[in-house]
């Protein structure tokens, strides 16, 4: 019988350890590879605190690549966790911040914030949060009246919210004529190259508490999947849990969107992949999505840096190229 006391804890540790190894490799790769070849050895040397062979390489690694890799990891973790939470709360396997239009709403808010001249942190983030909360409210109102949000109505409302948000974004862009235009457009497509290590640190400080809150609710998410009434009869305060999760998730998603723009489908690809591998228990899935999502995003960003012959492309291009076909596949399968 495999029913020992800490069976779940042991499984959690094993899974987290394996995924962390994977994440570690992704980080090393992400730091080593780039337009200036540094070689893994000098990266390791530099990471271990030894004097790197030349200070140039050290500067590139510490000032440019390291913050960028950390940022990619944070963003990937946030977005895949966001997808996982929305899928559980809306009981819809196709829910995802980008598809639902939550990210779009955050983008509208963030652009408004940028155009009004607010600073990156607090100012723009708050605008983004307001934007995503607004779209979330819109989605909930549009698909309310049903106890379970049906797949189709939820997706359709997401499409409409997204269309509406794009229209506003285009409108705002058409009003902008100075040099900010290029920046905003690049940012919109999901750009991870703009933040320095201090900003990454602030972002991490804002987002880590959200991870803990979501993990703390992970068993309630399991119960929620059996249906509201059943969860309630087992002692779950549905209202409180839903509210806590929705607010936490839209806060962390909008905060990352305000910093790095739109990176689609991450919240679809990673939770589905991990659910397939590890089963639906959220106590395992929440930490796994955080670690796995981080590794995935680091690799997507790496591809975005390496694939183009010249310069680089936004990481959002890569995530969409991988994620959109997967979405279509899942949609087709769920229709059966």
């Amino acid at each position, binding site marked *: 019988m495999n*029913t020992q*006391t800490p069976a779940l*804890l042991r499984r959690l540790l094993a899974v987290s350890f394996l995924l962390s190894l994977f994440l570690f490799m992704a980080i090393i790769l992400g730091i080593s590879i780039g337009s200036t070849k540094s070689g893994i050895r000098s990266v390791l040397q530099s990471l271990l605190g030894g004097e790197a062979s030349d200070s140039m390489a050290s500067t590139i690694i510490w000032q440019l690549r390291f913050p960028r890799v950390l940022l990619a990891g944070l963003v990937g973790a946030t977005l895949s966790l966001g997808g996982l939470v929305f899928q559980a709360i809306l009981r819809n396997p196709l829910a995802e911040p980008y598809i639902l239009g939550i990210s779009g709403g955050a983008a509208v808010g963030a652009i408004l914030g940028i155009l009004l001249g607010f600073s990156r942190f607090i100012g723009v983030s708050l605008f983004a949060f307001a934007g995503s909360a607004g779209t979330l409210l819109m989605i909930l109102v549009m698909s309310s009246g049903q106890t379970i949000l049906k797949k189709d109505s939820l997706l359709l409302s997401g499409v409409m919210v997204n269309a509406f948000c794009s229209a506003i974004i285009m409108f705002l862009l058409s009003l902008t004529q100075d040099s900010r235009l290029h920046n905003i457009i690049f940012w919109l497509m999901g750009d991870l190259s703009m933040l320095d290590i201090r900003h990454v640190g602030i972002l991490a400080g804002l987002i880590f508490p959200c991870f803990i809150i979501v993990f703390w609710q992970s068993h309630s998410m399991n119960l929620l999947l059996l*249906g509201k*009434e*059943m969860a*309630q009869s087992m*002692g779950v305060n549905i209202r409180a849990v839903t509210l806590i999760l929705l607010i936490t998730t839209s806060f962390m998603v909008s905060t990352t969107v305000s910093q790095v723009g739109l990176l689609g489908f991450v919240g679809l690809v990673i939770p589905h992949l991990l659910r397939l591998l590890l*089963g*639906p228990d959220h106590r395992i899935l929440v930490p796994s999505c955080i670690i796995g999502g981080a590794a995935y995003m680091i690799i997507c960003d790496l591809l975005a840096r390496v694939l183009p012959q010249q310069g680089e492309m936004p990481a959002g291009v890569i995530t969409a190229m991988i994620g959109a076909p997967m979405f279509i596949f899942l949609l087709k399968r769920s229709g059966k």
Partner: protein
Amino acid sequence: MNMAIVVKNLIHNYGDTAILKNLSFSIQKGDFFIIIGPNGSGKTTLMKTMSGILKVQNGLLEVMGRPIKTYSRKALGRTIAYVPQTMQADFPFTTREVVLMGRSPYLGMLGLEQKADHEIARKAMAFTEVESLADRKLDQLSGGERQRVFIARAICQEPQIMLLDEPTASLDLAHQVKIMDLMEELKEQKQITVVMVSHDVNLAAMYGDRLLLLKQGKIVTLGKPDNVLTYQTLEETYGCTLLVDESPLGKFPRVSLVPRKALDPSKKAGNHT
């Protein structure tokens, strides 16, 4: 006190519509108590109120001698288990995982199950004969198997009262008997008070210790099956012609539907004149 549930002057409205109109009754500990009545009589609303899902709007509801309001969510979960009418199986949990979730009223926030919890879950699965399905996913099970998994989950809550909303609806004949036999065993072996909503008056007649007949949010009668299931009462309540006789299986009534052609032989099907 030997009452599991006491209801006094219970009133429930949805907006302007009155669903439960001043109900008063009580359920004895250890009873197999079945609520019957036509569609829209308020059975499910009553069930949801007794399970704590709907708040008591007006009136008094006592569970094991204490007003339901005085229970915390988890304490109520340790006292009453509820098996609702419809259940999702969208996400691929295994039987074991679902049954183990029944332990959550006893566990902390993360619901980390101890060895003892696994043992309780195993016994619950054995009781409803789903132990062999422990590692199968819920969406791979038949309707009858799934219902037994959800009942095992409810048993895992170790409740004193179990509420079930039409657990035999949409099951075939063999599974209907199996579920009802299971409920009787639960009552006899574990001294759990079983309260059930059913559309099937014959199952209610065979298994119920006491029946509550509801119509439009009011009590028509409450009592032993042969007092409740008389043809006058039933015809009046359901508004159709019925035949009630004694079952060849024992001393309880048997209710048969009467088709129109049996009442008037000249109006046979396909012979409209």
